[in-house]
């Protein structure tokens, strides 16, 4: 079809009427190169990190403590610290994110100003630089809330008013809130209108409809959101730089008021502030590999669940 069109109608932009469109091929080729370049870079990064990290990567590396001034040993405490961080973060962020998404899809009217403001602030939260969350965590959670708690309950003794795992997790939960909201909202939108209408027609109230029809249908969306949020939270370092991450701890954190080690932070300090960067290079690459496996596999799971939701919606 197109070919015949080309032959009949004079070429619109250039005066060439016949022959191979070299310019067109070139232009399409350039865009193709851009795509290939990006994909190549991605696989080069992956490849180098896997290649360099593979020699130290072992079960022992994952399950043992760093020894000898962090120049040997494993990353167990950093892994556990990251795990606690994302768990506490999810506990804080998932309910709030889900409820906000329910509000936006079920309660907010099409052109309500309030809903628009909520949407705008969710999007703003998503683009605020992560270091700002770190500053906020320091200014609000530690200096304001923590010190406030200490003053009223502990008689001024410093306990909560310093960096710890709770404040770091809460800071991180603010950062990941938009991720959850967007995923849940997307999932809620795929629930057919007819289901809601059927429920309402049977005499259920709006709240009953949400509780018994809408929420069960959005479980997979909540899961996707949580997984994406965990993947994001596990990789971010800037927000926890001064809200709780520690350089080295000999023991695992015992309560929420302890500091913790973190995978991303571990990579950062090992590669920039370690006493012997050259010597610990394999450890750094292996740690990066662990973090990358963690975030990429979580992302992959989320993508698979999400595509299933979409297929179901069709």
């Amino acid at each position, binding site marked *: 079809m197109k070919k015949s069109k080309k032959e009949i109608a004079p070429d619109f932009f250039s005066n060439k009427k016949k022959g191979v469109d070299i310019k067109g091929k070139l232009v399409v080729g350039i865009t193709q190169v851009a795509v290939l370049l990006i994909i190549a870079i991605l696989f080069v*990064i992956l490849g180098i990190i896997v290649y360099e990290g593979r020699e130290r990567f072992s079960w022992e590396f994952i399950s043992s403590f760093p020894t000898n001034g962090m120049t040997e040993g494993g990353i167990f405490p950093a892994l556990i610290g990251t795990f606690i961080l994302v768990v506490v973060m999810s506990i804080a962020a998932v309910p709030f994110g889900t409820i906000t998404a329910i509000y936006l899809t079920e309660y907010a009217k099409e052109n309500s100003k309030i809903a628009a403001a909520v949407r705008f602030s969710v999007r703003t939260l998503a683009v605020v630089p992560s270091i700002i969350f770190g500053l906020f965590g320091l200014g609000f959670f530690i200096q304001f809330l923590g010190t406030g708690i200490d003053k009223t309950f502990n008689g001024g003794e410093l306990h909560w008013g310093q960096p710890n795992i709770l404040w770091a997790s809460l800071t991180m939960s603010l950062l990941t809130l938009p991720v959850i909201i967007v995923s849940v909202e997307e999932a809620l939108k795929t629930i057919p209108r007819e289901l809601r209408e059927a429920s*309402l027609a049977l005499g259920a109230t709006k709240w009953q409809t949400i509780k018994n029809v809408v929420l069960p249908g959005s479980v997979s969306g909540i899961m996707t959101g949580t997984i994406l949020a965990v993947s994001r939270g596990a990789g971010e370092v800037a927000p926890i*730089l001064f809200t709780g991450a520690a350089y080295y701890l000999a023991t695992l954190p015992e309560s929420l008021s302890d500091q913790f080690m973190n995978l991303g932070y571990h990579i950062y300090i090992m590669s920039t502030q370690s006493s012997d960067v050259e010597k610990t290079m394999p450890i750094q690459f292996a740690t*990066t590999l662990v973090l990358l496996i963690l975030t990429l596999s979580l992302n992959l799971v989320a993508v698979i669940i999400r595509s299933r939701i979409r297929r179901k919606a069709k």
Partner: protein
Amino acid sequence: MNPILQEKNNFTKESLKKQFRLSEFLAEKIISSVAFLSITIIVLIFVFVFKESLPLFSFVKKAKENTEIQTHTGAEIEKYGESEIKTEEIEPETYGAPAEDLEPETYGTPTEELNPVASKIEPTEPETYGIVTEDLNPEKTYIQEVVIDDKVTENNEGADKTWSTFFTTEWVPVSEHPRFGLLGLLIGTLKVTLIAMGIAGPLAILAALYTSCFASKRVKEIIKPIIEMLAAFPSVVIGFFALMVLATFFQDIFGYDSRLNAFIGGVAMALAAIPIIYTISEDALSAVPKTFSEASLALGASKWQTAFFVILPAATPGIFAALLLGVGRVFGETMIALMATGNAALLSTNPFESVRTFAATIGAEMAETVFGETHYSVLFFIGSLLFIFSFALNAIAEFYVKGRLIKKFQGK
């Protein structure tokens, strides 16, 4: 204020009339109030990040009070009615001494840098024209009024001079006479942003163009998730890769002196910005109505001509938004900047020199500062600048661009 109840009326008038269900009423109230949380968080971030930088402003005031009215406290209280308590609290400690030394300095320098913002500030503090001119950021004045009655922490030595050093190029926060020259940092940040966007922008937009206009549906379904996978790379991983691999690689090619520099940082940040720009501009390109391309093809234009001369111009506002958000990402990126830019605030235009960005400065130095110190406040001040900047970028991307886009597609 009550969209819930209204909506409820639409659907379940009957049940509402019959009985009032307390638990449901409460649940719905809770839902709508939780939804406001995100708005609250934005406001709180703004207030608290700014609050910690407030001592700077109180010292601006004090410095100018010293220079203006060298007499006594009484006059000031009249003048600054709202901030009465604060001025009284801080006043006595450093009142006498700095006044004399300060006057020539603070008056001399700022007037050279004439700033349009000054006229905006004028109404609030009419007599203090000279000093406040240093203030680059127009928004700050509004906030100053809003948050001013918050508690103000005490500052240490050399604080009155803080403002006069903001427009120098030296960043020496820890010394006898700390200097907080933001210019060097600003230039560093701009340099890295420019390099990163120069790489990421064209690459991502071309890739988006290929995906939405040329690629077959099957290829598209493979390409898109792979490129978006790049977004799942934590920035610390990209920073680490740049530090360990890219830096050595590019040094071997170009043979420059400093291994970590603006160029390496820019390349690494481009990797972080590509998925953002790609995703948003791909969406914008796909959102262009089919009728546009069909009309163009029907007129005899080839596929690539349609893509470049019809679809791309139609999606310009969306691509602009994508670039804005990319800039926002690069501007505030901390870990990559910390690890790959070398962190030396040099003043040069050479892309192969070390630079220091705003975000990296906060990340590197915040842990070493003492609560309430000038240095601490300055870092928070930089933070609020970053926040305002990213907020503004997002607002532009959101309102201006979307409005344009809708207008365009409706053919107005």
